[in-house]
């Protein structure tokens, strides 16, 4: 199985599986214990300058925004972020000056809503460096390899492109078919963050709807912070154990944060706050606007609850719930 080619992208997040096993043995508790803490404590204890950070959900869906804002508030620096279709979260982190490097599947854009002025400015000025390229499936399977405790996973994407050339993948000949295949190295982020609808105090987290790549990512990361709309009883989790996507033994911190994904969507609970996303895109068009945004919504607020008040409070949140749950607004009163 000769190596036919290899990408020149920087290999970030890879670890020797034996080294990671030792780390798991020493650091991941198998005990059902209470891991509840505040967002501020969770970020203080589990996010460090220089970390490789990966964030759950997908695009503007099910993103742990309270943690993202807190990382900015605590002025974490020099992070490498997994651009695994990372949009608003990555943008805020870049705007907050936390990010120096990104491995990109999809970054610096907001899907249909347009490109990200803030992310583009950082990359085009060289302030933030793209260290490697991959694709969504490429990231997914890098996390899969880590979750399995193996050094790599085989795939058939990336091949033949510049995406491969700027990736950390290798091309080898499959010893069975004789055909070239792509090897994707495992990716073990230092810390992964998730927002879920329900989780018990021990960290058994359940997700409604699509799981995206959170199953693999939670198992791949060294440290895991889960924010949840609601901390539920152990009993409730045990009634539907098939719904537990993230098991307690990979979780380090559990924070109860109702509306914790705003302005992202929380499936079945609340819709994207398009107005707020638009506001960010407008304000982040300039450095000054970006600063204004942060002093108004992040640095200038004490906590996430104050942030929620600033973005419109209960009235806004109720409206987002109505939209998500397909309840038409009342007809305008005369």
């Amino acid at each position, binding site marked *: 199985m000769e190596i036919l080619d290899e990408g020149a992208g920087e290999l970030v997040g890879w670890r020797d599986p034996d080294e990671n096993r030792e780390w798991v043995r020493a650091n991941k508790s198998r005990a059902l214990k209470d891991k509840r803490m505040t967002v501020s404590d969770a970020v203080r204890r589990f996010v460090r300058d220089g970390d490789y950070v990966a964030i759950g959900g997908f695009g503007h869906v099910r993103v742990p925004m309270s943690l993202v804002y807190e990382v900015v508030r605590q002025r974490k620096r020099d992070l490498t972020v997994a651009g695994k279709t990372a949009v608003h979260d990555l943008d805020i982190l870049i705007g907050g000056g936390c990010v120096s490097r990104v491995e990109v599947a999809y970054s610096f854009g907001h899907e*249909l809503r347009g490109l990200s002025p803030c992310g583009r400015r950082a990359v085009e000025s060289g302030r933030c460096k793209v260290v490697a390229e991959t694709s969504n499936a490429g990231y997914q399977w890098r996390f899969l390899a880590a979750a399995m405790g193996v050094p790599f996973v085989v795939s058939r994407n990336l091949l033949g492109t510049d995406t491969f050339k700027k990736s950390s993948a290798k091309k080898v000949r499959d010893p069975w078919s004789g055909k*070239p295949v792509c090897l994707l190295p495992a990716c073990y982020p230092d810390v992964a963050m998730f927002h879920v609808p329900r989780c018990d105090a021990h960290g058994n987290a359940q997700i409604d*709807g699509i799981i995206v790549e959170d199953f693999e990512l939670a198992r791949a990361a060294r440290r895991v912070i889960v924010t949840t709309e609601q901390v539920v009883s152990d009993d409730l989790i045990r009634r539907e154990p098939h719904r537990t996507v993230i098991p307690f033994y990979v979780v380090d911190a559990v924070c109860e944060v109702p509306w914790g994904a705003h302005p992202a969507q929380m499936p079945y609970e609340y819709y994207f706050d398009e107005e707020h996303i638009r506001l960010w895109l407008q304000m982040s068009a300039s450095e000054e606007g970006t600063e204004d945004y942060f002093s108004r919504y992040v640095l200038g607020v004490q906590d996430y609850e104050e942030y929620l008040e600033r973005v419109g409070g209960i009235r806004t949140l109720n409206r987002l719930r109505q939209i998500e749950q397909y309840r038409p607004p009342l007809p305008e009163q005369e």
Partner: protein
Amino acid sequence: MATTYTETELLACVASHMLADNKSVFVGTGLPMIAAMLAQRTHAPNLLLIFEAGGVGPQVPVLPISVGDSRTFHRAVVASTMHDVMSALQSGYVDYGFLGAAAIDAYGNINTTVIGDWARPRVRLPGSGGANDIGSLCWQTILILRQDRKKFVERLPFITTPGYLYGPGAREAEGLPAGGGPYRVITQLGVYGFDEETKRMALVARHPGVTVTEIQSNSEFEIIIPAQVAQTEPPTGSEQRILREIDPTGLVVGR
């Protein structure tokens, strides 16, 4: 009987006609989503929609904004994982995939990563997302983009997603699954396929009112022009009506 229609309506209808019933399509947001929903409501009621974040076979109530949007798995048959749908893609279960692009070359390779130098880009674009996966792994990709000489280029600064790479047999030689590749390219001027022998872009049909000269002059590379060039069907009134139902606020169709 001349009807009025917008460019976006035309592109949506032309894309929709390419989707056969009882096939599967990997859908992105925007125009592809509109085209797929239009196909379901016209000639392809049994078209299977698959979204890269995990939604399979939803009954979409409202136009989704994002590929992970809960609208993409509303009353789905499966609300699954990226691993599952990407594996289905890699295993050959997905017939069509839609792609957009900042630029394309004669072999249907596309760039969505960078303009200028990769290390110090003039314009940094979002990168592959699921595009490389779709372009590598689905059976037939359909590319939709605006055509001009800056977008139809001789040489891409960066190949994000494979078309036919550098010619016949190149995909297979690199290790990509056999038999895949770009099927059609749709622009505001016409519809293109790829020549069997050279795998270079060839005109299939021009849109109403567009000349072959316009088509050629809006491309840096030479487009193969066959002896007979068909003309695309303009949107019918009924299609336009359905498009308005699908996108009542004009989020996409109104552009």
